[in-house]
């Protein structure tokens, strides 16, 4: 156990580990009167402070995730998704994936001023139709029933207009209040 390692003891009997903790954790000195006049403690403290100044500089180094990391991860985890076949297509089928329908509904919901984030799941509900489950994070302020109605109306109006897919239902919940961005 390192706590009893003799190489950790300074000639004055002070434990090196205690001095490191003092610097690294900003802990008070165990024996300030001794420390102030002990050359061994002073020399060790100087070394530790210099090293920890570098440790903090290293911690503050800006390290950014590589540009492609997010895309690689998402590409690897996206599975095959369901799709809705449009009803009135002629001379070939037109399919719109659930992911696209969810994405369109999400954009519509997030365009509403009080909506901070919208999570949307889309389920193909039958020929040419989709059911949507929408969960919102909203900013504190607006009336929730009014907001919910407005979001539902926007989705019911614009999803069919943009995608050709009819929306059978919008299951909507307000699940969280948004925290201000730090």
């Amino acid at each position, binding site marked *: 156990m*390192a706590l009893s*390692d003799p190489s950790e003891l300074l000639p004055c009997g002070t434990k090196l580990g205690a001095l*490191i*903790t003092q610097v690294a954790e900003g802990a008070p000195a165990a024996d300030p009167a001794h420390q102030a006049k002990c050359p061994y403690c002073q020399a060790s403290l100087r*070394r530790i402070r210099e090293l920890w100044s570098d440790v903090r500089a290293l911690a503050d180094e800006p*390290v950014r*995730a590589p540009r492609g990391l997010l895309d690689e991860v998402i590409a690897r985890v996206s599975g095959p998704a369901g799709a809705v076949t449009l009803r009135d297509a002629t001379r070939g089928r037109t399919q719109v994936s659930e992911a696209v329908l969810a994405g369109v509904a999400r954009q519509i919901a997030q365009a509403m001023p009080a909506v901070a*984030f919208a999570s*949307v799941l889309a389920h193909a509900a039958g020929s040419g139709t989709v059911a949507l489950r929408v969960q919102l*994070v909203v900013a504190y302020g607006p009336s929730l029933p009014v907001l919910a109605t407005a979001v539902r109306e926007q989705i019911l109006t614009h999803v069919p207009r943009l995608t050709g897919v009819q929306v059978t239902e919008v299951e909507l919940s307000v699940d969280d209040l948004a925290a201000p961005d730090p």
Partner: protein
Amino acid sequence: MVVQASDRFLVAAAQAGDLHAFEALVRRHQGAVYRVALRMLGSEVDAEDAAQEALVQAWRSLSTFRGESAFSTWLYRILTNRCLKARAARHPMEALPDVLIDRDSDPAEAVAQSERLRALARGVLVLPADQRAALVLRELEGLSYEQIAQALGVTVPAVKGRIHRARLGLLKASASWR
């Protein structure tokens, strides 16, 4: 709108199958995940590999996350396990990326500091793996002892012991570059 969805909301949405919510989580945490991987492994290529594997594994095992710790702590746990495995199979002491230099300071001192920081990062890399993980999470990521204990799956006293030994080891090793 300058507001954010909480990790808890995003995790619940991702658990229900919303990949976009998971994407928001990855966007938020990828910097920390990559940073820890880089400090644990030393090479950018290995760090990116480990970060990618950890994030993919996070998606696959999302259903097992019960919210007993913060999502970030849970991610650190997956990542450190991954790094400890990756590390066993590879050579240490690969080249480290150049650290950035503070342009406002004296150029000679800036170069000297940059070299010291590289040596320090290498010094971290040669610590025993369990000590290194605890030290990186404490000194470079600023986690509490409790969070580190959760991330490493050990007790708080064990974490304190590892950090104590790691700090001593680092101080001794620093004699070679300071």
